């Protein structure tokens, strides 16, 4: 019954929504509507990303990734991570398969951490919105703080993960 156990949290949410339906019908109905539209946007993004990443896995030779984002890529690796994250679009869960692909092709761990960080800061759709709604000072503080912070975080975290843990991460990436 492994299948059912996987959906335990989903069932829990459905029960909560069911109870809520009797207490506050409006909230439960709108929650369900929003959930359904979220499913729609998830289906718009996750399947093509997974397919794209698995095809790129076949198409891109490991050497290409190693050359640009391998262990000895230096600052260039950070630049690539920044560019990839900036020109991407989608929620954070869409970034995981992309980082996973890079990791599988032996991209350096600190670049992956930096990439995920930049995904939450410089991603173009968010960046342009932020400029429009919050203005230049706010947005530049966000971007500059983000780049500096995640640069150091990626170096620190890479040091924190011992060699065997790194191998564990890369093995875990290879499995998904």
């Amino acid at each position, binding site marked *: 019954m492994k299948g059912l156990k996987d959906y335990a949290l989903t069932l829990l949410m459905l029960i909560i929504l069911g109870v809520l339906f009797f207490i506050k019908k409006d909230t439960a109905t709108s929650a369900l509507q929003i959930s359904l539209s979220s499913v729609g946007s998830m289906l718009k993004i996750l399947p093509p990303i997974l397919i794209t990443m698995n095809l790129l896995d076949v198409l891109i030779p490991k050497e290409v990734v190693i050359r640009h984002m391998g262990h000895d890529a230096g600052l260039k690796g950070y630049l690539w991570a920044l560019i990839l994250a900036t020109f991407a679009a989608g929620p954070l869960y869409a970034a995981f398969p992309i980082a996973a692909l890079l990791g599988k092709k032996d991209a350096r761990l600190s670049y992956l951490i930096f990439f995920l960080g930049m995904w939450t800061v410089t991603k173009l759709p968010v960046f342009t919105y932020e400029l429009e709604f*919050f203005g230049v000072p706010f947005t530049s503080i966000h971007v500059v703080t983000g780049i500096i912070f995640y640069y150091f975080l990626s170096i620190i975290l890479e040091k924190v993960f011992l060699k065997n843990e790194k191998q564990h991460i890369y093995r875990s990436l290879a499995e998904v």
Partner: protein
Amino acid sequence: MESILYYLAALVLLIITLVKDKNKARMALQKSLKVFLHLLPQMSFIMLLMGLSLAVFSPEAISGIIGSDSGVTGVAIAVLVGAVTLIPSFITIPLGATLIESGAGLAQVTGFISALMGIGFVTYPVEKKYFGRKFALYRNIGAFFMTVLFVIIVSITLGDAL
């Protein structure tokens, strides 16, 4: 819009791969389906939680709690709400602007936005599946510190909310 690009990219790559190696293309598609089904339990939970959090935390409800005079407590609540909810990024920024218009403080909204985008309490199970527990945990803690730093800098330079 972004979804059209993603599907287009997938389609173009699929054609290229099909031309190069039919077998590998089929394997890639099978693998994609497998991963998708593997992620589905978490995703269905995430979607339901996302609906519930957006329905419960309306802009009026949030801005009531994180007004400009709510101080550090308000920031803490904003960060917590941002961490446990999941809102599409193209909604996040306009929502933040709406919150400020309806009386929320800039520092509090900064914390909310940054936590919303960086800290993924809900996406944690998916992140764990990909990178393992320790990586997912540390990256989220890192995103928390990023949020704190961002709030401090914003409140020092742009506002006196704290």
